[in-house]
């Protein structure tokens, strides 16, 4: 059923335009004016090697920034987020800000909060990456609540073992050493459908370049051939062999696996 809204009078729109213009001029003349609703915060967090089945407290650089002329109380909460290569954290209660409120003096910042990880003791959480946000807000009146979402990226413990009961594309390990010797990682298709996985090495995550500092190969009968695409049936696993080329001395980079529904990477150290 179509829905209709009454036409807005032209005069109201013109009035709004004038109001915004006046507000803009006022802001330019008085940048310190704090009458408008405002929120400011900074920082992010990247938690590596997060253990499962135990609580851990991690420091972050996340804090609220007071832009007003009086002391402000900030609140912090965790929400799910989606990022390339990262799954939304399954349960936002697995990550708790500490403290969840903090005050900031005039023209100052709150203390940098910590994050408590509370991942359950579930082996399927090994070799996983999750994304979340810490949402920073301050008490506000009216219908608008302004907030800042600061990113949190989580990497659980890395292992060479793959859980066979996983129901998605998986790799193991998710971080590995890179040297002159040939090493290997596993790609496993735990989904019900076959998958075609693009595999490549890159120096910077998300930026596929043409540089070839690390060589990727896979086994085919009696030979090893370059690996840039792997077709996996449901429940099938494939080994990828990698090694640094002799003349390469740059960044170790990442081995990236792009499946049909999920993208993964192994961080080389």
């Amino acid at each position, binding site marked *: 059923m179509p829905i209709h809204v009454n036409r807005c009078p032209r005069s109201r729109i013109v009035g709004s335009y004038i109001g915004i213009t006046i507000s803009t001029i006022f802001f330019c003349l008085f940048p310190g004016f704090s009458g408008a609703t405002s929120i400011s915060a900074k920082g992010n967090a990247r938690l590596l090697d997060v253990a499962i089945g135990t609580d851990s407290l991690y420091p*972050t650089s996340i804090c609220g920034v007071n832009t007003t002329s009086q002391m402000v109380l900030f609140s912090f909460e965790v929400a799910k987020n989606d990022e390339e290569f990262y799954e939304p954290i399954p349960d936002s209660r697995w990550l708790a800000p500490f403290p969840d409120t903090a005050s900031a003096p005039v023209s100052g910042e709150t203390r940098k909060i910590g994050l408590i990880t509370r991942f359950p003791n579930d082996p399927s959480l090994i070799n996983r990456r999750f994304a979340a946000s810490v949402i920073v807000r301050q008490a506000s009146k009216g219908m608008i609540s302004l907030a800042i979402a600061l990113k949190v990226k989580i990497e659980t413990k890395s292992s060479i073992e793959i859980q066979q009961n996983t129901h998605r594309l998986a790799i193991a390990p998710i971080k590995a050493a890179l040297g002159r010797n040939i090493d290997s990682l596993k790609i496993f298709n735990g989904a019900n459908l076959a998958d075609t996985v693009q595999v490549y090495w890159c120096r910077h995550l998300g930026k596929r370049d043409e540089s070839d500092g690390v060589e990727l190969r896979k086994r085919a009968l009696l030979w090893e051939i370059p690996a840039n695409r792997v077709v996996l049936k449901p429940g099938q696993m494939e080994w990828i062999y990698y090694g640094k080329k002799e003349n390469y001395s740059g960044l170790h980079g990442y081995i990236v696996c792009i499946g049909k529904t999920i993208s993964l990477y192994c961080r080389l150290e």
Partner: protein
Amino acid sequence: MVNIRFKQLLIIATLTISLVVAFLGAGESMGTSTSFSALETDLEGEGTGNTAFVYSQFTMCPLRVDLIDPTDTSWTVDYDIACWGCYAHTDTGFAFRNMGCVGANIKLAVESNSWRTSVAPPINPGFEKFLIWAIAIKSWHGYYQNDDFWLDYDTNRTACLIDTVPNYQKITSNRFYNRSADMTPYLEPPMDATGMNLHPNNDFILLLLLQSPISIDSEDSSETIILHVIVEPIGG
């Protein structure tokens, strides 16, 4: 004579130092979240018993967003509309400005935790879904009409439907804006495929219409229904 030269030198030196300081200060405040270098630390997570490290405490300058208009953000209930349970807020729109030094994307959500209804209580208080119909534009041009909201709804041109409560959902262009259909540059939202890209010192205006799942007392609406406007750094 010597004194005058000394004063001149002093003034030149002062100006030079001021310029250098201003230049360094300006350089520090520019950039996006992806351009900030990572500082690696070897802090251990407490109570793990395992090796647990935290890296990359990004030294990022703050994000900041201001609502610059209107100052009165109470709900406006349009009693004349044919839509049962709709709350129109496109009369004025909400003008925001990125006052920080990092490019940002915008997420929207609506939340209502304390329902008091005039018709019937919802089955799951606080979890019924709102629909937000949102239009983001760069600036007022004086020609946009409320009617266009629903005209565009029919053709899926500019109105973005956000299914929410309180699902923080990013406004994206592919479901929101059709360049071939909206030729006027004023309607072009500041966004790309990753969401609304609100760059430092830029404004954007949100025209909103919220469709509630049930009828709500207008007296309650200003305190019980909260529109969350969430700013998230680009990249990082």
